[in-house]
Every structure is written in C-alpha cells, then in structure tokens.
C-alpha cells in the first residue's frame, strides 16, 4: 500500500531532496516535481526553500509554479511550507523588499535582532501552542533544527502554532486550517521532526478517508 501522494515543489533551489526523503521514510508517496499539473493533482503539497527570499520567489515564478503553489495553499488541501517555504507564504520580506511573496498569510518577514549571531544555526526549542495539530505528540522539550536570519511576523497571532526565542520571540510554526508552515527544518530535526512530518502525513490521510 502506498501512502497519500505528496508533491514536493522543486523549483531548482538548493537541497530540496531532504524533505522528499524524510516523507518517503514515513511511507508517504512523496516526489519532487516541477510540473504544475502534478502539484495540482497531488493530495498534499510541500513547499521547501533554502537561501534568500527573493531568489526563492523568483525561482518559483520563473519555474512557472507560483499559480499551482498558490492554488494548493488556498484550495483546502494540506500544505506545508518549510523555512523559506514558510516565509514565502507571507506578503513580503525585508530580506528582498522588492520581491512580493505569495501573500497567503498576512504579515511580513523581518530580520532577527543583531544582538545574536546570525544566521541562527542549530537546535532550538519550540514552545508549542496548545491544540496545534502540527505540534501534536511532540517530545518535550521540542528541539528542532533552525537555519535562518529572518523570521515571519504574522499580523494575526492566532495562526501561530509554535514560538521560538532567538534575539526575539518569533513565530516558528504557523497553522491556519490545512496550511501549515515551519521556520525550522522538520526533515533535519531527527525524531522530533519526523514526528511532526508524520502529523502532516496523518492529516493528509485523515482528509482522504473522510
């Protein structure tokens, strides 16, 4: 039996393979794809991202995948943004002010305070908001792997599923209905990260069996 079909959006940036591998490890039928039709027909979509906000947005656009990605994050299918893939859901980022984001979640991405070493590189704890589905059954304390200098500031804090502290308190995970996103890399966060991805796969499964 194969699990739900999860499209991992491949727009040619950096190491996108680890998200695919981690989902496959959880027996999900996950595949990298740069075909908009595969994204449109998948049961769920994962948008990874590494590097700079502007470069990622531009690569997504020039790969012709902005429309299919936007649709996936707004048509009720489970959707997971990771790292820059989370940041791209917002209206824009101070990292690349001239480039618009996908504008799916209200708010902006801003630089972490210069009082700490940037990028934040390494394991930090997630303060999971009670009732969050992506944060269900995670070990406590929840250590997750972060690599970033910028972090989102959602206008509506009720979308925040988990907080992290580095220089300031920031939204490390958001969850609005089926749209989930994490600033950390669950695919690189050992057992805790795999648990979180398994929550995502579970959400895809339960939607399909309803």
């Amino acid at each position, binding site marked *: 039996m194969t699990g739900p079909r999860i499209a991992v959006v491949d727009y040619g940036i950096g190491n996108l393979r680890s998200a695919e591998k981690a989902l496959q490890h959880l027996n999900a039928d996950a595949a990298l794809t740069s075909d908009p039709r595969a994204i449109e027909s998948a049961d769920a979509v994962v948008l990874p991202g590494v590097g700079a906000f502007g470069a990622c947005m531009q690569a997504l656009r020039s790969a012709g995948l902005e429309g299919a990605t936007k649709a996936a994050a707004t048509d009720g299918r489970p959707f997971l943004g990771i790292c820059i893939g989370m940041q791209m859901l917002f209206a824009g980022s101070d990292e690349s002010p001239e480039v618009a984001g996908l504008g799916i979640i209200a708010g902006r991405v801003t630089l972490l305070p210069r009082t700490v070493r940037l990028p934040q590189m*390494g394991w930090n704890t997630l303060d999971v908001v009670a009732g969050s589905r992506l944060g269900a059954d995670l070990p406590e304390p929840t250590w997750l792997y972060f690599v970033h200098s910028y972090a989102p500031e959602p206008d509506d804090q009720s979308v925040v599923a988990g907080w992290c502290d580095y220089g300031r308190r920031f939204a490390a995970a958001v969850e609005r209905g089926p749209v989930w996103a994490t600033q950390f890399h669950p695919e690189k966060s050992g057992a805790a990260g795999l648990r979180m991805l398994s929550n995502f796969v579970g959400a895809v499964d339960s939607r399909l069996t309803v």
Partner: protein
Amino acid sequence: MLAVRVIPCLDVDAGRVVKGVNFLGIRDAGDPVELAIRYDAEGADELVFLDITASSDARDTMVHVVEQVAEQVFIPFTVGGGVRTVEDARRMLRAGADKVSFNTAAVNDPEVVRAGAQEYGAQCIVVAIDARRRTEGGWEVVTHGGRTPTGLDAIAWAERVCALGAGEILLTSMDRDGTRAGYDIALLQAIGEAVDVPIIASGGVGTLEHLYDGAAAGGASGLLAASIFHFGQHTVHEAKTFLAERRVVVRP
C-alpha cells in the same frame, strides 16, 4: 535557547571513513552511512564529512555517499574537502548535503564564496579556516594540512569571507590539530569577536573538558571532534551529559 552543537567529523577517502574509526557494535567501521546513523542515534547535532580523496577518479564516490546519508540520516550535515567550485557545491547540495565548506578554494579565489552564497544562500556556505599561530602574535591562514602558509591574517580573512557571504566558519587550529591538547581558545575568541556568524571550533579535542572550554571560554556555536568519538573513548551522549552538567545548553 539555541543549543551548542556537538559535531563528529568523519574523514572520507574514496567512499570509506579513514583515520582509524574503531568502536563496538558496528559491523563495518569504515562505512560512512553506518557511522552517520550511529552518531545520529547517539545524539549528534550535525555531522561533517571531509572528503580527503586524492584521486579525482574517485571523486564521484563522495556524491553517492552524500546521497545515501541523506536517505537515512535526518540531521544536518556538511561536506567539505573536495568542494572547489560552485558546481561542486551544487552537486553536493543536490545530493542531499545541507552545507558545503570551502577551504583552499576560497583562499585561491574568494569570489567562490560570494558566488556560492548568492546561488544557495549564506546559510549553506561554510568557510573552513585552518589557522596557525605566528611567532610575532596573531594567526596565519594555512592550507594543505598546514604545509602551505598563505600570508593571510586569520582574523582579517574571517572578516573578509563573512563579508563575501559565508554563513559559518569552521575554525581549525593547526597548532592543536591531532595533539589532543584542547582547542586554541584565544583563536576562537579572536575570530568570535571579529565576526557575527556562528563558529565551529575544531582541532585538538582530547577530553570532554576541552569541549566545555570551547563553548564556555571560546564561545563556539559548534564543537567539532573526531578521535574522542571514533575510538569509543566517549559517546556523543556522554559529551552532552558532561556539557549539560556544566550548564552549557545542549540538546539532550
């Protein structure tokens, strides 16, 4: 709080881990994938693979190693050694590495750091600096295992590579490397004051106390060690317990 990372380093020659890795409960001590799984299970926060393959024929082997590690190990890892060009970086990142480290290539052509960071982001570009004390004070950047002096001042070089886009510095004291006498704390402090990016301390770890000194006195964000882990002298878990008992923030 951000945890201090404990990072085992594996030297890989033509696809096999070398420098006498020898611990119990492992079928084949030379298999990088098996070792990576073992260190992950022990609680390693990250891994560094240094490709020391001399022959260019065997260089593709490292790509396969990276692919296999990425399939089975879900913690971050850096690949260094054979990474000379942006194209080399691309291959390693596409194969599944999270970061690549430039060393001699950056000395020969600093623009490779800028080009790599522009293409893939500063967060995956590490610059490895091998430094040796000068008799007149300060440190000089050396290459080729310390045999080749470059004339570059280590502090100025660290500042330069960060301005070019390095997201992390892997700082090895060539005076201490292999001595088991502890990290060069003054070097860590000097580079740490000069730049804002995270610094991984390397070179000289012989005891758990040395790891503690690297974090507490040296201010390092990551603590790299090889032999104390490879020979079964200490597990990564023991290292973290030791650090936690001394109030260094670590991921258990």
